[in-house]
């Protein structure tokens, strides 16, 4: 349904997304994880045809068999909301403060499906119920500032579902919410994708949320997809050093997070930060921060190595047969 083959995004000479290969079918639930600056959001915007205007796209992005990498804004407008829809990170910022949330949610229904106002209203009401907004009749007439963060995120999910898309992209949908609400939004997205047989791309740096909501996972680093496979397997037995680093860098509030004297251990981190796009090594982009780097890593690009049942990772250690 959606197929990326060797899709790259260039900004001038910098390559912000390098040779992304991905297939998303109806009903798939895919997690995308990685640090800030790893290209997760850019990937999401690409799938919406909303990459910045200065971006140049190479490779193929097929939606329903049609190559959209070179499509016009008008072609994209027809796909958005009906085939691909998106939930944004900041529920406060993603709703027009001067518009009643009901009007916002009804907009795409009138636009794409040609619904009358009353038909759109009826659909908005049932959507509000589906995403768990109590008293939808009253809520439809409210302004964003009258709602809590969790409610606003539910409104945005209802907006994304307005025209029954085949793919829902959630770009860090829980980052701006407190932990309890985040959990419920995660479960809601997972349930909606299952019930509607809709594909879900769940972008997050919260590994626990990704594990909860998705079946498959892609790990990204500095614009490269470094590992992919079933979520449980990748997070359970990570193959790429970067995935291992990510998993090691989770805070643990329990006993495991304390040393023998009961004091808190320092949180393990991956040293350094994602380098700027201009300063990336030619080969593996993780070279320089990698704890188990080989001499040729920085110069030579590792191939994607398929292992068992759809798992793959791009690391020289795997081809050299050195697992540790």
């Amino acid at each position: 349904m959606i197929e990326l083959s060797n899709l790259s995004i260039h900004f001038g000479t910098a390559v912000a997304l390098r040779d992304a290969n991905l297939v998303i079918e109806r009903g798939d639930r895919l997690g995308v994880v990685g640090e800030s600056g790893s290209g997760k959001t850019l990937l999401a915007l690409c799938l919406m045809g909303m990459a910045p205007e200065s971006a140049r796209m190479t490779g193929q992005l097929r939606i329903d068999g049609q190559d959209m990498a070179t499509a016009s804004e008008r072609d994209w407008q027809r796909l958005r909301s009906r085939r691909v829809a998106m939930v944004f990170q900041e529920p406060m910022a993603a709703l027009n403060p001067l518009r009643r949330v009901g009007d916002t949610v009804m907009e795409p229904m009138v636009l794409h499906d040609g619904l009358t106002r009353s038909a759109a209203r009826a659909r908005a009401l049932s959507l509000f119920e589906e995403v768990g907004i109590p008293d939808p009749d009253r809520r439809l007439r409210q302004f964003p500032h009258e709602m809590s963060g969790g409610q606003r995120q539910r409104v945005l999910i209802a907006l994304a579902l307005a025209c029954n898309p085949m793919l829902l992209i959630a770009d860090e949908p829980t980052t701006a919410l407190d932990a309890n609400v985040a959990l419920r939004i995660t479960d809601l997205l997972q349930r909606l994708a299952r019930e509607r047989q809709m594909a879900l791309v769940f972008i997050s740096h919260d590994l626990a949320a990704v594990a909860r909501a998705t079946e498959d996972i892609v790990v990204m680093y500095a614009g490269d997809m470094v590992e992919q496979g079933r979520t449980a397997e990748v997070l359970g037995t990570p193959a790429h050093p970067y995935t291992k680093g990510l998993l090691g860098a989770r805070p643990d509030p329990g006993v495991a997070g304390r040393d023998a004297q009961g004091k808190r251990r320092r949180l393990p981190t991956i040293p350094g930060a994602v380098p700027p796009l201009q300063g990336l090594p030619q080969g593996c982009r993780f070279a320089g921060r990698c704890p188990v780097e080989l001499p040729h890593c920085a110069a030579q690009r590792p191939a994607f190595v398929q292992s068992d049942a759809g798992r793959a990772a791009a690391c020289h250690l795997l081809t050299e047969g050195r697992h540790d």
Partner: protein
Amino acid sequence: MKRLPANFLLGALLVSLVVGVAALSLVWTPHDPQAMSISTKFAPPSTEHWLGTDQLGRDVVAQLMAAARNSMTVALVAVLLGGSIGVGLGLLASALGGWVEDAVMRLADLGFAFPALLFAIMLAAVFGPSLTNAVLAISFINIPIFARVTRASANQIWTRDYVAAARAAGRGRFAISRDHILPNIAAAVIVQATIEFAVAILAEAALSYLGLGAQPPASSWGRMLSEAQTLMYLAPQLAIYPGLCIVVAVLGFGLLGDGLRDITDPRLVRAR
């Protein structure tokens, strides 16, 4: 309840005074503003003529009231006409970007570079002096001002997440401009309109003073000033009254605009 700034309150007071008088002149003036009576020319203030009469025996209060109405009408039409064209161009520039934006903004620069008075004189030379031409000239100078303010504010709104969300919902640039951009820049545009209203009043007075605006027998503060000028030593009050009216109207709208800006821009209020 937050206290409203003093400039807003004073501005609102002066504006309601001027607008109230202009509105009242539609239904009532103490005398016919055009009725001449040579026998009672240069009459001093009395219960019959509150501010006396002019060189033709016309009632000064009635003339000032009629002039207020003319002045408000000219300013309103000029700001609405120039403003809506300017806002439209600004929104278009912001929505399309690229060469359209460049072209609109360079045209705006050109409009700025052209002195308003010169443009009015040119219009008067070609089509003859009239109030309509004065309105057109004032509208014209308002276009680039509104285009700039609109484009600058709109460019900010285009970067907001809710605009991205509207795009993600499949809406086009023009629908987004109408439903999301325009309501969110309305405050800035209204502030600008109020200030330009003051400028338009002044411009109308200046053009009428030069004989390029309101033509006899229509009343205008600017024309009353120019007629009184020759009688400065004989009856200085005839120049002082319209002059005061212009000051009150311009000051009122200027203060109101500043006050509105203080209210709608929270950063400025906190800086006080």
